[in-house]
């Protein structure tokens, strides 16, 4: 039978999907958070991506409704381990707005210092992970080693390496003296040449360049439409930074500038992070040298137990982007509603579109070798050309029919 008559006499058409469904996560060595990326690949090219979440939902918003404002402050800083200071800052400022409290000038400077130290170590961490994912493990080790300097500085400032817990309504919980100041300055002095070296490395190294440049390119309009925030927004040339727009705490007084890059690719996002880390380092030094005199630590016994009715919307520039807290109070000891929108929530869930069109190896989380589980291959679609119906059957059913 020749092909032409075969087409004419055909009664069924087999449509075999050529895309593979590759689930990555929720537990996977390449991704550091329990999220599931479902990648549909046609050969090497990603044709569709889906994000599945819900593996780490702890019901924190409900928990905050059930607890007092003071307990809520400590719950807020446990939302995220890496950027805990910005969470407590955002919640503290929202509650301060409701209660009409105002921190002292020195407290504002110490808050900014804690947040900027956190930004430096967070940006170093994500760059180290990027180095690991592209197979540059030595660089990962080096960056993580030097990140310890910032962690140490944070420990000197707040008493803890990770959870700073330095905020309290209308002030801070720990002050810094001359000795601590000198120690932090010494650590930052050792860190600065390392940051400059890594920044140069990311800009000039040909391996990093060939893996990151032109990968995941985002146009400014796409970034805005999909509500992506933070370094992603700024690496696409959109000049938006909460620190400059709201000028909360001491951001209006400390000299600094917004870092933007026009390219919009993965390399630009990493370089924006290095530039911001250097900018933050300068801010930390300025704060330590120009710390205003006066009280900073608040007497917690004199703080109000109940709060007046009202609502507050606070924003803060977390290392990953704009962090939002919306607190409603109807009076009393507990908040009525606390809405938290973390930058990762939008950056991860809304970014599915950005994987499409890239090769599987370009999806950064797939870069570490993975044995994909091909779950879609066992199905084909059978279309009945005469009857016009369509049904899905497993592949082994067809094998039995020998058609």
């Amino acid at each position, binding site marked *: 039978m020749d092909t032409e008559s075969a087409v004419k006499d055909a009664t069924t058409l087999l449509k075999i999907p050529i895309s593979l469904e590759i689930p990555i996560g929720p537990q996977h060595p390449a991704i550091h958070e329990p999220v599931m990326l479902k990648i549909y690949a046609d050969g090497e090219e990603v044709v569709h991506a889906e994000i599945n979440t819900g593996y780490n939902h702890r019901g924190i918003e409900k928990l905050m409704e059930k607890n007092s404002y003071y307990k809520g402050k400590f719950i807020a800083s446990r939302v995220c381990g890496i950027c805990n200071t910005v969470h407590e800052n955002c919640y503290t400022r929202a509650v301060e707005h409701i209660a009409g409290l105002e921190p002292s000038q020195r407290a504002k400077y110490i808050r900014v210092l804690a947040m900027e130290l956190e930004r430096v170590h967070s940006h170093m961490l994500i760059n180290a992970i990027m180095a690991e994912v592209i197979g540059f493990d030595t660089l990962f080790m080096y960056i993580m080693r030097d990140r310890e300097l910032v962690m140490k500085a944070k420990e000197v400032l707040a008493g803890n390496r990770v959870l700073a817990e330095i905020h309290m309504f209308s002030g801070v919980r720990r002050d810094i003296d001359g000795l601590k100041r000198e120690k932090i300055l010494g650590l930052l002095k050792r860190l600065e040449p390392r940051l400059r070296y890594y920044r140069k490395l990311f800009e000039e190294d040909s391996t990093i360049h060939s893996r990151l440049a032109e990968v995941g390119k985002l146009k400014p309009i796409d970034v*805005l439409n999909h509500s992506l925030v933070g370094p992603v927004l700024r690496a696409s040339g959109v000049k*938006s930074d909460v620190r400059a727009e709201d000028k909360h705490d001491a951001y209006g007084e400390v000299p600094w500038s917004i870092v933007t890059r026009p390219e919009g690719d993965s390399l630009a996002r990493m370089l924006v992070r290095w530039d911001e880390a250097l900018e933050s380092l300068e801010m930390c030094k300025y704060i330590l040298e120009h710390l205003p005199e006066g009280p900073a630590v608040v007497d917690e016994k004199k703080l109000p137990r109940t709060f007046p009715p009202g609502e507050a919307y606070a924003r803060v520039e977390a290392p990953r982007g704009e962090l*939002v807290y919306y607190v409603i109070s109807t009076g009393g000891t507990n908040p009525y*509603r606390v*809405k938290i929108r973390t930058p990762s929530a*939008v950056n991860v869930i*809304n970014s599915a579109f950005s994987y499409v069109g890239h090769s599987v190896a370009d999806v950064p989380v797939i870069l570490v070798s993975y044995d994909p589980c091909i779950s879609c291959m066992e199905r084909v679609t059978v279309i009945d050309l005469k009857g016009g119906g369509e049904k899905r059957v497993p592949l082994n059913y067809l094998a039995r029919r020998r058609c």
Partner: protein
Amino acid sequence: MEVLKNSFSGNVYLATIAGVDRVKENVFELNYFVHIVSLGKTIVIRTSTPKTSPRVDTIIDIMPGAFSAEAEIYDLFGVEFVGNRYLRRGFFVPLDVASQGTHPLRKDAQV
């Protein structure tokens, strides 16, 4: 929402949608926080829907960034966004909670 987006020539993004269960008024309140980049300001658009049949038109066709917020509110409050085909239960809450038909952030939900 479209007028707002066009009047700033697309230089806006949706920060989030905050759902609130207002027990006294017996409504779900939805606060749309839209950030205008060129002004550096956030504006709030507030709407509400009755608790008996919570339905609101989706804005995902105007602002695709609303996807995460709408998916969250559908899962945690049970507000249906008409026209959003991607909504499903169990997006955030575990499936054993979702299968009981519980919406955890409603004030009457027992968790």
